[in-house]
């Protein structure tokens, strides 16, 4: 099946940014095709299960039921191309069905996923990302285990811990790399923005009441257990993330929920050829957009985490701005209406970005994590490439960049195509070579022309229309 109707607006991603854009477009009478890989809308931030009250709280979630929205859940864009203003998206609906969509008007809201740092034992079953533990709890009403440690850095750890505590789980520790003094220095002066500081206060209250032990300036530096997680090693770390000698101690748990911030998901933007840039505050690669949320490709806009990590509030604002810009650029609304709709939004985005940037400053990841590694620590989970393999390729085969490290050791060539290990491999290689990670290396790691695996049989059948 294929759509040559290039006049529908296509939005990829039904998290806060995509839903917000859809809501605006529907309100001005446009028809929207909303594509999302999840079974329910909401992305990561608004993940919910069947009986959740979240759709009452956020009416963006209800836009999927609007008659002007064609909503395709459980659908992946497996590849895409852009030529002369038209984006062609190849959709994988299930193992037997494909669909091609062409459009002149596209909004990318593909979000982000947990950033992972490798450490000894991180491949032990029971070690999960904070987002993964959250997804199980909120999306599947399932606790990942019995005794939890929540670790890493970032404001996201708090709602994860609180979610577990509220669900009656035993949380043995929360291990946060940043320190309260840094928090106060960077954030103390900020005025309330969307009640975000208020949220923190509520979370802190719940945690204090639960008597869960909070460790600051600390990190989980190793996980232990034969076939399944049994305990973790927590150590005090300095600002460079180097372990303070003698500070290690062990905490029992069967689930470690570890999160180190988020990595924007750029696969679709890259496949289309949209320009990217490095966000200096967290060193991540993001889609480069202007003040209208327009990418370097005419007709393609981007909003939400993929343009820079900033939380759900900012994503809502950016989604709305992208939709207004698209609507004006394609004459779905006139410039008077567009000005009216934009009132206050620019300032709101600025404030939210400012707050988000301050958070990124507080919750920094420093590359001293490479000192936690042992030679047999797995670096690439998919291909089981170890730290030792990478180091040998550098010392024994004169590997000097991340691309060659990947091609010679298979790190990043497995099923996840470097989503989990890519940045860590680049940073380890750069560290071993005594330099910073290059833009070329980060960019190279983001290119995935085949975004999602597609069965050969489906690829072969194609489509009579294609």
């Amino acid at each position, binding site marked *: 099946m294929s759509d040559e109707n290039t006049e529908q607006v296509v939005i990829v991603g039904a998290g806060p940014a995509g839903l917000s854009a859809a809501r605006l477009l529907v309100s001005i009478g446009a028809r929207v095709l909303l594509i999302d890989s999840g079974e329910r809308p909401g992305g990561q931030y608004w993940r919910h299960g069947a009986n959740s009250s979240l759709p009452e709280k956020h009416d963006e979630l209800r836009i999927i039921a609007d008659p002007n929205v064609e909503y395709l859940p459980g659908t992946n864009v497996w*590849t895409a191309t852009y030529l002369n203003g038209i984006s062609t998206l190849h959709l994988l609906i299930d193992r037997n069905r494909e669909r091609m969509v062409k459009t002149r008007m596209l909004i990318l809201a593909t979000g982000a996923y947990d950033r992972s740092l490798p450490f000894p034992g991180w491949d032990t079953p029971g070690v999960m990302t904070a987002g993964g533990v959250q997804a199980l709890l909120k999306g599947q009403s399932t606790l990942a285990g019995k005794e939890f440690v929540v670790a890493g850095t970032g404001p996201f750890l708090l709602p994860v811990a609180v979610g577990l505590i509220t669900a009656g789980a035993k949380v043995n520790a929360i291990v946060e790399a940043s320190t309260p003094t840094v928090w106060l220095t960077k954030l103390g002066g900020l005025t309330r923005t969307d009640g975000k500081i208020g949220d923190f206060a509520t979370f802190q209250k719940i945690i204090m009441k639960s008597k869960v032990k909070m460790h600051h300036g600390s990190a989980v530096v190793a996980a232990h257990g034969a076939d399944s997680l049994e305990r973790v090693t927590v150590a005090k770390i300095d600002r460079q993330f180097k372990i303070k000698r003698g500070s290690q101690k062990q905490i029992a748990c069967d689930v470690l929920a570890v999160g180190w911030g988020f990595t924007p998901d750029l696969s679709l933007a890259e496949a289309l050829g949209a320009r990217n840039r490095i966000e200096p505050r967290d060193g991540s690669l993001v889609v480069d957009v202007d003040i209208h949320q327009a990418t370097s490709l005419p007709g393609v806009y981007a909003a939400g985490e993929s343009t820079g990590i900033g939380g759900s509030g900012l994503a809502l604002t950016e989604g709305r701005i992208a939709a207004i810009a698209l609507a004006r650029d394609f004459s779905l609304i006139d410039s008077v209406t567009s000005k009216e709709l934009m009132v206050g939004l620019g300032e709101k985005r600025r404030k939210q970005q400012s707050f988000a940037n301050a958070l990124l400053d507080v919750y920094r990841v420093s590359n001293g994590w490479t000192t936690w590694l042992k030679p047999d620590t797995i670096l690439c989970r998919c291909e089981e490439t170890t730290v030792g393999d990478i180091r040998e390729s550098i010392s024994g085969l004169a590997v*000097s960049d991340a691309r060659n490290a990947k091609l*010679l050791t298979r790190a990043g060539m497995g*099923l996840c195509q470097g989503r989990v290990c890519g940045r860590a491999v680049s940073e380890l290689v750069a560290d071993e070579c005594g330099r910073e990670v290059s833009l070329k290396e980060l960019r190279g790691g983001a290119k995935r*022309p085949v975004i999602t*695996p597609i*069965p*050969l049989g489906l690829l*072969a059948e194609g489509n009579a229309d294609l």
Partner: protein
Amino acid sequence: MNSPDVIVIGAGVVGAACALALCDAGLKVLVLERSTISSGTTSAGEGNILVSDKTPGPDLTLGLWSRQAWFEVSDRVGGGFELEAKGGLVISRSAEGIAKLRQFAVQQRIGGVEAVEVDHTGVHELEPHLEPDASFGIYYLQDAQCHPMLAAARMLQAVRVAGGEIREAEEVIGLSRAGSELSVRTKGGLFTAPIIVNATGTWAGEIARLAGSDLPIAPRRGFILVTSPVPNLVRHKVYDADYLANVASGEAEIQSSAVVESTQSGTILIGSSRERIGFNTSLDVQILRRLARQAISLFPLLARVDVLRAYSGFRPYMPDHLPVIGEDPLVPGLFHAAGHEGSGISLAPATGELIRAAVTGESSFMDPTPFSPARFMSTS
């Protein structure tokens, strides 16, 4: 490195083989690579070391010697590049195709190739998952496979250990005479040597032009599909006899035929396509669909296997389908080692050996005249 005897431009598999052969001949070798090692076509290859696709004549002579040499290279560099004498099975499923394939094999046998005719039972013993109606094939015992990037990396490491030097991020922007030597200017430096070897593959024409000469090398794009890791499905390199016609074709538009093989990592590589479309890197979904269809027609079980990634590479295409190996008649001291189309990996060690002989003025296992760069130049 002070006063190299030879500068090799290009650190792909052919450049690496040349550098190693020259090093082992006692010469001081400097390799200049514009990016990082094997960043050109070597990183887009399947790792084919074939005799099955070689035409009797200089192509086959080069190919046979080279195939054997790969095992010596492996001993020389301490292995570590997944070299495997797995054998190749060429299938034909039409009466006309079978006749042509038989005839081709007869000629190849005369040239020294071990090629065995296999019937319906035979092909399915060799490849149990091959489609049930396939009933004729030629099994080439000498076909082998390796990991091309590891091969190049290991050869280059051996060059370093033997005293050679490899410099990355040295893009050549000028090449001229400097008295009795040749001088190579890169973005960052100036290097001189009496001998230069141009092993820049698909870009060798550019280097030749910088030196005031020319080579008719053009990019011939190919796509490869890589599957997710699968349990044992394909044991040898298996391809449809149409492949041979495609290699030999000069057509610009898409030629494709089924080529399927497994790798030591468990993935399956699916090719192959050939087009003359310049250096266009954008994904062509229609070509990927063709490759998928062709592969499934050989191995029906592949239908439920997922494609994990796809990539393209640019083979260095020569109009007469033979590489150019030898001294440039217009630029004494400049030797070309390029234009191997889809056989760069297969022919690398033999190319290295012919270059060694040409540079040192010695004889070798064959007369290199068929590969001479002079064959494209009109006598003036």
